[in-house]
């Protein structure tokens, strides 16, 4: 484990360096910066869903609901309480986490399909509730985010927003990464792999499931807060069922059980959606095709690709080089020749 880590390149650090440096290459092109910001926000949402699916072994087809909860909290808190950015982000995460906690409560009883229908219903219901709770959410029109500043920097202008989102999202990704390395994370994975075995080891399965639901919702709520700042407007139509499906696709394409995989999946799919936006339906078709292809070719997603490729390469090299196997084959032939003689 440690050896493997030392041998590989420090990919997360390189990626972070790239993310910090790349705006310079584009000279602050706002359109590109906007897409990059979207990549980071969706990466947090996808990683939070991955925490639930890849590590917790649960399914959710309604993560856009948590995103909406976070975004609406951000808007309400920013408009009515004028909180600074950091408490506002925490509030968005906590409100989403509270909803996630309530939604996670029945998971002890609900499995598979029934969990799918519960989360699906939640995801569909949140925009409808937002639409009808006009006193809080302003209905169709939605809530406009008031201009936010952080240490005197204007968060509505582009490079600033990008760097702020980069900092928050990287913190979230690192937090999730260290969470899965802790005792709690190990418990999530134990429950995922076998509930019965985990129970036999003294794990409270139900509590672990509620915990993973709550944590996942917390990070998705933070993503929602960032989304509110990015779009500048929080409206019921911003959180369709398709968005939940998009996060789901990101997790699958990136690889279940890999936080960095989710970042890769999010960047890939956001860029695809951006590039193919001119033809209606094209991006959806490509994303669906990518999901199917991933499951057929590499079910563990992009994250497993380096491992799979290097394994294939090594096997090819071994076959050609006179390694152990080759030598034995030669000896075999020699023995046979001697026998014939």
């Amino acid at each position: 484990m440690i050896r493997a880590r030392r041998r590989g390149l420090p990919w997360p650090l390189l990626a972070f360096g790239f993310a910090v440096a790349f705006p310079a290459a584009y000279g602050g092109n706002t359109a590109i910066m906007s897409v990059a910001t979207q990549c980071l926000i969706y990466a947090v949402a996808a990683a939070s869903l991955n925490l639930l699916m890849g590590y917790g072994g649960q399914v959710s087809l309604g993560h856009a609901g948590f995103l909406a909860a976070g975004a609406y909290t951000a808007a309400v808190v920013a408009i009515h309480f004028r909180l600074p950015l950091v408490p506002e982000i925490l509030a968005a995460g906590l409100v989403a986490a509270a909803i996630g906690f309530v939604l996670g409560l029945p998971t002890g009883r609900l499995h598979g399909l029934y969990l799918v229908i519960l989360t699906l219903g939640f995801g569909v219901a949140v925009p409808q509730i937002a639409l009808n709770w006009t006193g809080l959410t302003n209905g169709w029109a939605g809530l406009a985010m008031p201009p936010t500043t952080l240490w005197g920097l204007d968060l509505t202008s582009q490079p600033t927003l990008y760097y702020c989102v980069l900092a928050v999202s990287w913190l979230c990704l690192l937090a999730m990464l260290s969470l899965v390395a802790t005792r709690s994370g190990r418990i999530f994975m134990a429950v995922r792999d076998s509930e019965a075995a985990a129970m036999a080891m003294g794990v409270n399965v139900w509590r672990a499931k509620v915990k993973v639901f709550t944590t996942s919702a917390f990070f998705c709520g933070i993503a929602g807060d960032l989304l509110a700042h990015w779009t500048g407007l929080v409206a019921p139509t911003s959180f369709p069922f398709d968005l939940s499906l998009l996060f789901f696709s990101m997790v699958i394409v990136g690889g279940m059980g890999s936080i960095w995989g989710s970042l890769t999946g999010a960047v890939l799919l956001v860029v695809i959606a951006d590039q193919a936006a001119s033809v209606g339906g094209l991006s959806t078709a490509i994303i669906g095709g990518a999901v199917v292809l991933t499951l057929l070719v590499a079910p563990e997603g992009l994250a497993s690709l380096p491992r799979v490729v290097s394994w294939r390469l090594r096997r090819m090299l071994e076959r050609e080089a006179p390694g152990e196997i080759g030598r034995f084959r030669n000896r075999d032939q020699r023995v046979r020749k001697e026998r014939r003689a």
Partner: protein
Amino acid sequence: MVQFGQDVIGGLGFGAIYALAALGLVIIFKTSRLVNFAFGSMGTAVAMILWTLLSAVRLPLVAAWLLALVGAAVVGALTDEALLRRIEQAPSLIQITITLGLFIGIEGLVGVLWGYTPKPLPELTSGGSLRVGPYFLTPDQLLIVALTLVLAAALHFVLERTRLGLAMRAIAQDRDTAMLMGVPTRRTVALSWAWGVLLSGLAAILVAPAVSLSPTMMDQIAVFAFAAAVLGGFGSLAGAIVGGFIVGIVGNLISAYLSTNFQLTFIFLLIVAVLYVRPHGIFGSAAQSRQ
């Protein structure tokens, strides 16, 4: 009271559509233990094919219908043969996910091929609404409800009285044992996929005149049909029918008396309530949903 009755009747048409689509889901689930989440966009594709056959190729109505439905059956069988068979051994989450991927992919493909401008499909019947006592019914509603009930009866007959049905039930109970007993499992599963997608296609064709034909037309209907199947207890034909009609009627009552916007929310609340009392659906048993 008359108004209430009229609202109940108004829900029958859509209820029948949900029931049909739910039947398609249940048939597939029975043999392959999988939920075909792609059924919505597969149905839309079938309806689009029908539109092309009618408007571009100008086939007569009956021929176009038959061709489109045969196409649906082929798509279903191919999905099983070409995709799901390859990942038979994978965990069920992966298998379910591949149908979700298909759902997204086919919806996008339909959008690319046919575009997003709504298209009209002709109504099946002409003439004004019928009057039954104090209530009004459109001939289309009547036809859809009748067709659904007849198809459900036919399916029940096939399942209970024919060799194919026996094979399906054997596979539903225990696939490996069925295979050992000489049941042609692969062919039977592929056939049930063909039937399931055919029913989804039929549901889409029937609902298309009421909502306009577009790539996302089936999204909401698919969610309702899935809800109906869960409500009835996945794996039961009667459950799919009853679940479909309950969702259709309750949905119509909610939009009539509470709010159109809240329809889905309340349907899901109803389902959560039902599942709380009966965790395996109205007609389901614990053994059926155990996987």
